[in-house]
């Protein structure tokens, strides 16, 4: 079977299209690359959606944590502590079994036990908590002069936040937020190793890498391929976020710009 044929069969296997049966023996390198790459679709899906939705929630959390009013500040503090203080791995398990118990009460909860929604919610809340803390730190280090200048121009409330505080916060938080994005992208590999089932063997990249390693008892082929894909996508994230960073800093003289420091990874 030619490699092109394999690509046609398995390129969208993780979504349920193409060949139903996974290869069972005589694994070729092409099969490794295609299936693990197919699984990456899920990692990208989880990463992109959770990050883009989490961004807005994180902003709200940071502002709430900054608030002088206790009824806004306390819930935000607790939320951030809850999600930053416990392992994502346990959060996944807990959420899955929580949804499973809810499922027996109403059919509304059915989709929540599937990874595409249930795990996405956990990742969304988790990244919101982590980025919320980053944004909160940035909010605290906004130069006093910027805000005073805004006051002097008579800006208050929402206009001041939208035009002065928020852009500065983003600019200061961006290098750390880039790390968070890489972080989250790596964390997506946990999904199918917690309770969430890979229905009809539609799993993510690590799921397939693990499948190959289990079948061949040879970890030296699938995991380096997985690493290759992840390093590739990490570089893409760094590139895209670097462009945004340049945009955020475009008004500053060259030497004052916040330097991007690539500090990927660690588990949560």
């Amino acid at each position: 079977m030619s490699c092109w044929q394999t690509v046609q069969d398995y390129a969208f296997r993780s979504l349920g299209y193409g060949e139903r049966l996974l290869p069972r023996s005589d694994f070729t390198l092409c099969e490794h690359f295609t299936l693990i790459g197919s699984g990456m679709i899920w990692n990208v899906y989880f990463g992109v959606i959770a990050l883009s939705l989490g961004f807005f929630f994180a902003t709200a959390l940071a502002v709430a944590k900054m608030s002088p009013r206790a009824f806004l500040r306390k819930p935000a503090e607790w939320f951030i502590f809850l999600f930053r203080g416990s392992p994502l791995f346990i959060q996944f398990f807990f959420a899955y079994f929580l949804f499973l118990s809810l499922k027996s009460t109403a059919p509304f909860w059915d989709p929540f036990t599937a990874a595409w929604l249930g795990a996405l919610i956990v990742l969304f809340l988790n990244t919101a908590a982590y980025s919320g803390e980053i944004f909160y730190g940035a909010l605290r280090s906004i130069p006093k002069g910027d805000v005073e200048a805004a006051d002097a121009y008579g800006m208050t409330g929402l206009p001041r936040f939208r035009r002065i505080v928020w852009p500065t916060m983003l600019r200061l938080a961006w290098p750390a937020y880039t790390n968070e994005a890489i972080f989250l992208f790596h964390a997506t590999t946990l999904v199918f190793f917690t309770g969430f089932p890979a229905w009809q063997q539609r799993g993510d990249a690590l799921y397939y890498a693990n499948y190959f390693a289990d079948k061949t008892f040879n970890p030296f082929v699938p995991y380096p391929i997985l690493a290759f894909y992840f390093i590739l996508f990490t570089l893409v994230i760094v590139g895209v976020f670097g462009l945004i960073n340049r945009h955020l800093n475009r008004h500053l003289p060259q030497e004052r710009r916040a330097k991007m420091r690539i500090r990927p990874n660690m588990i949560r």
Partner: protein
Amino acid sequence: MFSYCTDPDTLGTFRWFSCYLTTGVHMQFYASFFKVLLLLAITAPVALAFGFVGAMAARSRIAPIGWIGKGYIAIVRGVPDIAFFLFFVIALDQAFEYLRHRVLCPDWTEPVRQGSDFLVCQQAKLPLGTSPEWVHETYGFFLAVITFAIVFGAFAANVLYGGMRAVPRAQLETAEAYGMSHRQTFWRVLVPQMWVFALPGLSNLWMVLIKATPLLFLLGIEDIVYWARELGGTKTSRFSDYPHGDWRMWYFLALLIFYLMMTRVSEVALERLMQRLTHGQATTGGEAQRKAVA
């Protein structure tokens, strides 16, 4: 456990739970918490040692050693750690068995990899097929510790490398001016001073290490996650004296609270340590302490 536990069906709620939570399997569940703490206690210093060696290698003046050090840091940090956990457990096991195979059975001619099999001679198996259960468990735990140490060693190496570079250059120049050799400068000036710069990163790392411990489950250790899944699952009266529905949610809630408490305690302890280390240092923190006393 208690004398009234002989017939659980007749008990009231409180007594039923007091019996249920003290059964033999629950004791094993509680013991697995100590397994986690033990892993932390062993891994943290080993990973720190790995990190120290890695950082030393990364700033070595001999180029190839420098490349190895930097490569180690870069590769481990660029790939999801869970992939490393799954990878190293098999890879290390096969590496050990292969080495023993070469030493113990030199006259074995067949290749080790045959299709989907990894074959070594009987004497080279690790642990030996004849050894008792606890040897198997300890060996698994040992592999887990090495895996954690390799992965977290790279993170620690990165932090320590940064700490070493943060020590003011003038300090090292002064040491050189006093005629200290490279080695003396490193051990007497650089190493004692780098900790305060490395501590924020290291304490962050400790938090991450705590949160990485549930991954033990993936390495095939009977840890808290394993027991929570086992004990929480639905039990019918046929298999257990204490039948109950699906309680896994509550067990994982308990684990969640356990980890939250661990994080909180560590936060407080690390804050104290930081206070002590900044004492008398020429940093903003040390300066603030000096002013507070005065």
